[in-house]
């Protein structure tokens, strides 16, 4: 399962200039965090932000003796910056990406505003279905804040062996709700799923070696 998230970023500098600035903050054996640039073009920059995290793991044995182990972890955040579209794509991001966003902001002299995107997952998935030319069906939905009565809300997951959208409409009726996630299941020849999230995130559980599905996801993302 590969996870992607898109954030709105309007870069004040060209991708090549951004590449040069990030290259001046490289990750290496003597620093605790920095960038590795993988690919630079006029219209995109791909790279990774790597953090080296060192900590001491303490374990107490059955007799109360403390054992300490030095641990080292590397946290990588792959990203793709583009001057058009959402501006920033994160691939398999860690739980917190604040550090990456701070460093990117610092590299562009704090002139870039990186903001979260809220998208309509139904519109996104429908556009994706028409672009990707793959047979797929919406077999799962997650609805949040469904107002049952004033002040009483429900969070519901609807699953089925066929398209569940009409059942969802029947269930929600005229009530207020927010559509949080939607799952598309591919039928042959591609087998797998994509989960669309309303924070402009997507989880791909489908083989996509040439990233054509990913390309369709980017192109169908509501602006």
């Amino acid at each position: 399962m590969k996870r992607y998230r898109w954030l709105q970023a309007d870069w004040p500098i060209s991708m090549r200039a951004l590449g040069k600035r990030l290259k001046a903050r490289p990750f290496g054996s003597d620093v605790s965090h920095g960038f590795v640039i993988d690919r630079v073009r006029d219209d995109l920059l791909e790279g990774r932000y790597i953090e080296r995290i060192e900590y001491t793991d303490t374990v107490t044995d059955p007799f109360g003796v403390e054992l300490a182990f030095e641990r080292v972890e590397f946290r990588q955040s792959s990203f793709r910056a583009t001057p058009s579209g959402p501006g920033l794509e994160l691939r398999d991001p860690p739980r917190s990406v604040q550090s990456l966003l701070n460093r990117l902001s610092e590299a562009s002299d704090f002139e870039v505003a990186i903001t979260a995107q809220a998208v309509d997952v139904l519109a996104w998935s429908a556009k994706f279905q028409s672009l990707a030319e793959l047979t797929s069906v919406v077999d799962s939905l997650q609805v949040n804040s469904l107002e049952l009565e004033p002040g009483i809300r429900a969070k519901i997951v609807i699953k089925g062996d066929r398209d569940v959208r009409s059942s969802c409409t029947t269930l929600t009726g005229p009530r207020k709700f927010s559509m949080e996630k939607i799952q598309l299941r591919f039928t042959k020849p591609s087998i797998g799923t994509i989960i669309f999230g309303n924070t402009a995130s997507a989880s791909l559980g489908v083989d996509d070696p040439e990233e054509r599905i990913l390309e369709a996801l980017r192109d169908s993302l509501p602006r």
Partner: protein
Amino acid sequence: MGGTLAENEHTAHQAELLASELFSEFFWSKLGPTNHDWPCEDKERHQVATHPCDVVYYYDEPYAARQTYVHCDLKSYAKGTITAAAVKAAVESLAKQVACAERSEEWRKLHTHDNVTFSVSGLLFVYNHDGEYEADFQKNLMHIAPESLQLPRGSKLFVLGPKEIFWLDNIRADIQQMRGKSNPEVPAPEFCFFFHPQLMRRANLQVKKAKAATLETLTSPIIILEHRDPRRSHQRGVIVFYSRPGDTVDEFMYLIDTMRKYELLDENTSVKVKTLGASPISSPTFQKAQLQYIEGLTGAGVDTDLGEYVKAIRYEPMRETRSVYSNIDLGTWS
């Protein structure tokens, strides 16, 4: 001509000459200087100050509106010097070169067009100049762990060994031979292009512009040259170069079916299948496959249009040609 093995200047030049003749026939173009060094972008990890560059070719991609730049490392080895260690070192070095080319301003200025969307691929070209290497070259690649190559995600690296180069060189020679006959079977290059089918999920976007054989085509068992002869009111002809042994009927039935799916079989197209060093019984096997395929369409004794097109496919094993260069001659005339 970077390499870890001892190569004398003229031996190294042999690979360069062969690659130049070979890839121009497949419609690849050169861009930028050859045999130069350019600064490494990641000196700490790569442990070098500069990377070598033998030559960079480019071609238009049929399935995407972009160009592919092929950063080549051309090696010319004698039989005894093609070892797993040498190949591994060459592959690892090439991977680093490709990783740096992806982000180097200098490499981009020297080797790419402005305002073009492109991708960079690496090609290790291992030419056996004494022609005596007979072992399975691909075994040398089995011990290379992909994760040990410091390639960026999505980058591709191709390796052509002695056998693959021999096959491609024979295709080149065969095309030139057919073109040079008193009654040419293949028209001039401007009327030829390599065929890339319309696929289920990938459209060939640049049928006219993307004439070149892609790296994927060159490393596949079927390479198809399409031509439109201007002297015969642009009649369509296709030559299917097939690298497999051709010793079973099923294999050829699959090939015929592939041609049908690619829409190469019709009344206005002449189709010729060519093999190299195929099984001694490949001709009768192909004939049998044609008959079985026709029978499989509607049963015996029923004539169909498609059956006629299948019957009209010509099969012709190629004559082996080996390009041999002399270091003395190269040293005398260069």
